[in-house]
């Protein structure tokens, strides 16, 4: 085992493009019949990086993830994962990947510990190794006191943490998380983010899809904004915000139906004005100054809010749509 590890460290089998990239894709495409889910995307994910795919439902994130995790064949283009071709070396690649799928695949009738046990056995780990790792992972997932309980009655957050713990049982080189916190309450999400942040600090390479901008900002070193199967932009959260948005945003709410008529009277108060069905967004370097100008012009919004720009604004700018509706 130790031998094969050294043989496959980055550099020995350089993927196309970035040497040493754990995942490398060129013109990666996924088609379902006539529908193009992923439309010729290029990316490289480096060792130790947390790389995000941000986009709305149906953008092609999950299709991309399923190709990376060697569970879905590539339609065209090239993909190298850990330097290997998924079409040829699926089992060896998957033996070094931890997958947290969008839908949990836990065995609800079995106990928490059994789920880890069974999963570890798929990777052919000896029982004593699984037991050692399980103890550590249950502690990490804060499930130690539930180890012998059935999975079924656990909360959504607990199941999600168990799925993450399970994906780590094989000590993977690459952790793939498909919408890790969708459907969780805020507290459960923050706990999960904390766990994922710790993994990142331990050097685990993570690929994450999400349609939550705050999640992408929290977790990702670098991300691509995905829409209709293509990348609309790529960079760190900070870079993207700087490139595609102003520093601050003023959100104005007027009485319903009133705000379309108002947009003409806002010319010049900000660098850019976005009219959404429920609110107006003013993009400005200095939000307070813009808001003061709004009031000076005699406009009286029902409510107003000055905030820092987020990836949501980047997405709106890039696609003309909001991310989560």
């Amino acid at each position, binding site marked *: 085992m130790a*031998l094969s590890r050294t043989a496959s460290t980055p550099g020995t089998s350089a993927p196309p493009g970035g040497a040493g990239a754990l995942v490398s894709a060129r013109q990666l495409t996924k088609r*379902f019949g006539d529908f193009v889910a992923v439309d010729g995307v290029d990316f490289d994910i480096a060792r130790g990086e947390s790389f995000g795919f941000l986009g709305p439902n149906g953008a092609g994130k999950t299709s991309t993830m399923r190709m990376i995790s060697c569970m879905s*064949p590539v339609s065209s283009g090239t993909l190298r994962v850990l330097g290997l071709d998924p079409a040829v070396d699926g089992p060896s690649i*998957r033996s070094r990947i931890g997958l947290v799928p969008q839908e949990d695949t836990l065995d609800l009738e079995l106990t928490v510990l059994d789920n880890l046990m069974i999963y570890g056995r*798929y990777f052919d780990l*000896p029982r004593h190794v699984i037991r050692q790792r399980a103890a550590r992972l249950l502690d990490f997932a804060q499930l130690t006191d539930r180890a012998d309980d059935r999975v079924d009655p656990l909360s959504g957050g607990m199941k999600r943490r168990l799925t993450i713990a399970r994906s780590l049982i094989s000590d993977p080189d690459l952790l793939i998380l498909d919408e890790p916190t969708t459907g969780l309450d805020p507290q459960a999400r923050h706990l999960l983010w904390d766990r994922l942040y710790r993994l990142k600090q331990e050097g685990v390479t993570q690929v994450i899809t999400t349609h939550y901008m705050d999640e992408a900002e929290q977790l990702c070193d670098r991300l691509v904004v995905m829409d209709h199967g293509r990348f609309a932009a790529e960079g760190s959260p900070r870079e993207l915000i700087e490139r595609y948005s102003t520093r601050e945003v003023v959100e104005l709410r007027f009485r319903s139906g009133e705000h379309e008529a108002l947009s003409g009277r806002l010319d010049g108060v900000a660098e850019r004005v976005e009219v959404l069905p429920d609110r107006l967004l003013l993009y400005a370097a200095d939000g307070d100054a813009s808001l003061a100008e709004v009031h000076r012009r005699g406009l009286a919004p029902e409510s107003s809010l000055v905030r820092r720009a987020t990836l949501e604004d980047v997405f709106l700018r890039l696609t003309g749509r909001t991310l989560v509706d």
Partner: protein
Amino acid sequence: MARRSTPLWWRGYRYWAYQDRKTWRSSITTSFLFHILYLAAMGVGLGSLVDKHAHTVGGVSYLDFVAPGLLAATAMQIGANDAMYPVMGAIKWIRTYFAMLATPLRVEDVLIGHLGWIATRVAIVSAAYLAVIAAFGVVASPLAVLALPAAVATGLAFSAPIAAFAATQDKDVGFTTIYRFGLIPLFLFSGTFFPVGQLPGWLQSVAYATPLYHGVDLCRGLVLGRISLGPALGDAVYLVALAGVGSVAAHRTFARRLVV
């Protein structure tokens, strides 16, 4: 230095053995008892009446006639049953197959592992059943040992094609149809309880075409030691071929459902 790695399909098999470890006894005992009750009612109860009037059925007592037939019918029932809800559950509800496919296992490993465990369950019940009918004095030949693989083949001749079908289904109504129009008529009319020769001519040909007929014929021949090589070989080839073709079909439908 490195441990030899376990075959991928065996890792799938191990899962089923593990998750079934608390329930297999009760589920298997149920179907075992069901068929033993049938044996008692038909073979001993009805049999005494039959023997009084007809003296022999196919040259043997009614108990001897029915007992090996029920062995094949038991194998069919377990083989078919285990390939319905468990396969659908592993795709739709528990999603076990997807969990497996995220690990080194491939579609063929998932399939072989599951069919392998079904075969094991068929073998366990069949062995217990054979022991019971031996105690009833039905077993008349050492060839009866071969009735065990024959029963397993009978079971797989049902599980493989049914698994192939189950992987294409979104709802379980198809299973009811299989029972109503497939398994129950087969159970009653494939030579388990009376010789197929008693059926009207056209139905005889239908009966000969069904897998249970061949399972019954083969098991009966082996248990009673009344067998001729040609037809027995024909039965065996039929069953193995059906299991084989079913497995290939299942590999295709599994792949289409699981790897998209």
